């Protein structure tokens, strides 16, 4: 359920790194907690993002939640398909519904994130 090659935040985002690029999404646990997701607000390409700061919002029927960036850097791509199909965040949060790609300025920040095993014990998920 929670891929081993991802890193995770306490705020329920995931990060997948390839070279100096990090792909960010929300976890399956997050989408379950949020329920039916109806809007996603993402930053613009080129935006400078700081680790731990809001990079956008996800909105479900019930509530609005900030998305916190796992790492610092510059946004190089956003997942534009989510504007018309935010429900993908419920159906495929670890895959098709990634949110943004960031060119990381401080890759050492990855050390602050949780492994899959740590994240699962953090949320009390059953393996």
């Amino acid at each position, binding site marked *: 359920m929670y891929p081993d090659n991802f890193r995770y935040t306490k705020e329920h985002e995931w990060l997948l790194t390839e070279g100096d690029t990090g792909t960010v999404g929300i976890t399956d646990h997050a989408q379950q907690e949020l*329920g*039916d997701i*109806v809007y996603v607000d993402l930053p613009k390409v080129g935006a400078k993002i700081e680790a731990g700061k809001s990079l956008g919002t996800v*909105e*479900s*029927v*019930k509530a*609005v939640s900030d998305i916190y960036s796992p790492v610092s850097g510059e946004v190089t791509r956003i997942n534009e398909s989510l504007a018309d199909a935010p429900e993908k965040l419920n159906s495929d949060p670890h895959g098709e519904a990634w949110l943004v790609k960031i060119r990381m300025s401080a890759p050492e920040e990855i050390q602050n994130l949780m492994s899959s095993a740590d994240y699962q014990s953090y949320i009390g998920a059953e393996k």
Partner: protein
Amino acid sequence: MVDFGGWDMPVQYSGIIDEHNAVRNGVGIFDVSHMGEIEIRGPEAGRLTDFVTTNAVQKLKVGQAHYSGLLYEHGGFVDDILVHKVAGDHYFLCVNASNQDKDFEHIRAHNRFDAQVENAGARYAQLAVQGPKARATLQKLTPVDLAAIKYYWFTDGDVCGVPARIAHTGYTGEDGYEIYIPPTEAVRIWNEVMNAGAGFGIKPAGLGARNTLRLEAKMALYGHEIDAGISPLEADLGWIVKLDKGDFVGRDTLVKQKEAGVRRKLIGFEMRGRGIGRDGYEVFLDGAAAGWVTSGSPSPTLNKNIGLCYLPAEQSHPGKTIQVMIRSQPVDAVTVETPFYKRAK
């Protein structure tokens, strides 16, 4: 689970939209045992009930219920409630969980009649069975002829072999029943209702769906559309205020408000721009702050983003373009007629 007035309650089971649609198209069951109950008894029970509420208690027949307001002298809401006339000397009030103790104290403080007031919440669990298939579901579990209970009437009878109060009421804008049962039997009756409704696709529904359903039907939620600072005339609830029925707590203020006109009034809106106007968001008219959103949500039935807001009374009519401030950005919306959803009879 969330804390709701001290009760652990599920926001959702299978998902708000799924649960919402089950109630609109089939049947859903809500555990609303958190709701409070207050019983007023004695020869002057009717006089006390009438004196502390806005609607005309004298007009209620035995077995009939109505929606009403419990007001402060200054015209603001202590609570919004359902009043059931069980007998000439016995009234049964269903009140909001978080207001129960405050309501009880308020009623007692105004009890200058020969009436007994009991805070009876602990004696009742409540299940709401709601949706076009609610009657067919519940009928399997009771000898009472449900079709004979008119809307906003109730009867006492057995459900699953247990004495219950069966009310043809609800908070969803859909047909349905609210049953008051002994707490010790609540889990068993819940399970039996789930079995009885299985063929109709019954779903358990949580606070999330309860909110979207009541909002589409424009039913007020205490703490949102109404509170201690809002009068029923402002909340578009003039229909539960019977100024000609005789004296009641808050009447003097409402008479003055009616003569002078209220300053602000509740109105529905639909978002035009991208976004959801949620409760507490500011509303702008012609570039200036003019009011606030009381409730806002996607409407699963209408597939629009809807809400309710307060605007200056003279501006509070359908067809006005407004802006809702969503995370510091003004987003267009337009005021509309309510309710947003009305079931076909």
